[in-house]
């Protein structure tokens, strides 16, 4: 029997390329990319935040384009080992109305937080669940502050916990228990300290409500907003949140 011809160097088999199938995901943001493609900043359930290029979706008549919607649950399939993966398929899952009005601006705010704070390719399945729930709640929220603020505060707290920066709310910075009826201030990176002049002050009952994610009271909501801002400040640095500015602009109309 004749020898087989010299073997060609083995091409990297398709099986070697990491593939992800039917992964629950949301698109946080998308950018025009090269000539006819889009670059997607994706938050997926099991692989966290990934950058995925959707090739050819800028061409007229692209089938995929209509599925690549922000604030809509998707099932995405992609492949690739590098920093930027390649989209293979996208399936729109449905079940959530498209966000509009104030809830839509709030959705942008959640996305901006995730884009600024969530490292790439680290899985946060519980946070993904909280995001899904928050988008669902925003989708059925009325177009008013009272309806959306509990959703925002609850997601902020979940995000801080997931990242390991949640404020300790059940004892003072040194470990001493909170005294009922007292007020406390929050020193970011340190913890709760006895109330200081010139700093926001928080009631113990309110701190307990925040800790339990019970945001159904105006007093709790007001103080929670201040506390969250203090807790996020060291993480966000000096860069302003554009979505927060938009929301503030609308509030002062």
């Amino acid at each position, binding site marked *: 029997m004749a020898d087989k011809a010299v073997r060609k160097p083995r091409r990297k088999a398709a099986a070697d390329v990491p593939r992800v199938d039917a992964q629950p995901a949301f698109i*946080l*943001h998308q950018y*025009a990319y*090269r*000539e*006819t493609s889009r670059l997607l900043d994706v938050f997926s359930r099991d692989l966290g935040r990934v950058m995925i290029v959707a090739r050819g979706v*800028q061409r007229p008549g692209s089938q995929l384009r*209509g*599925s690549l*919607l*922000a*604030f*809509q649950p998707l099932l995405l399939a992609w492949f690739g080992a590098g920093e930027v993966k390649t989209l293979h398929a996208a399936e*729109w899952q*449905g079940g959530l*109305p*498209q*966000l*509009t*009005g*104030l809830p*839509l*601006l709030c*959705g*942008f705010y959640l*996305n*901006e937080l995730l*884009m600024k704070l969530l490292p790439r390719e680290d899985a946060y399945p519980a946070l993904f669940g909280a995001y899904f729930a928050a988008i669902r709640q925003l989708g059925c929220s009325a177009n008013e502050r009272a309806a959306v603020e509990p959703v925002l505060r609850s997601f902020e707290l979940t995000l801080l916990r997931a990242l390991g920066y949640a404020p300790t709310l059940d004892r003072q910075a040194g470990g001493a228990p909170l005294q009922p009826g007292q007020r406390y201030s929050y020193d970011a990176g340190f913890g709760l300290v006895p109330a200081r002049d010139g700093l926001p002050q928080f009631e113990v009952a309110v701190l307990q409500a925040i800790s339990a994610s019970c945001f159904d009271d105006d007093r709790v909501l007001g103080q929670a907003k201040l506390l969250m801002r203090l807790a996020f400040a060291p993480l966000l640095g000096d860069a302003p949140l*554009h*979505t927060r*500015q*938009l929301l503030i*602009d*609308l509030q002062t*109309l």
Partner: protein
Amino acid sequence: MTVPSSLQQLIQALKVLPGVGPKSASRMAYHLLQRDQAGAANLAHAIEYAMATLSHCRHCNTFTEAEVCDICADDERSRRQLCVVEMPTDLLMIEQTLAYQGLYFVLMGRLSPLDGIGTKDIAFERLLERASDGEVEEVILATNFTVEGEATAHYLAETLRARGLKVSRIARGLPVGGELEHVDPSTLAQALVERRGL
């Protein structure tokens, strides 16, 4: 072989066009220089001429050679309705429908908070001024149905309503002649959400 710097400069310059990357830019540059020098000279001249003669209409902000564009200068059109679009191309699309007799305002962009594009980056202040001329009764928001276009519409609606103006949003749903079987599911879902009474 190195690319001469003037050619390199042309390729760089062509890359400002949307959707044109290095490959297309270099293909265009070689085409212009090798195959169509007259076309290239014409293009250079047309760009220069447009830059020198075009400005923004004082009323609607679209491109015009006069101080006021033809549409804004047309006495037949209703001054009571003002349709807000993102880009001049959107204005042209609506004009082609012959379905609208009012006036326009072109934002020259949209709000995109995740890209850091805010009210100062579009003609927002000019729109407020334009819509408050005392003649406009209804502002029709015809920004795109992208998340950015929707956010822009919301922001404008809140601001304009606070000034006592009536604000409406163009409708979305199935395409005319569209069959449910062939429409994409997200459009169909939204058409159900935004259904209207008969």
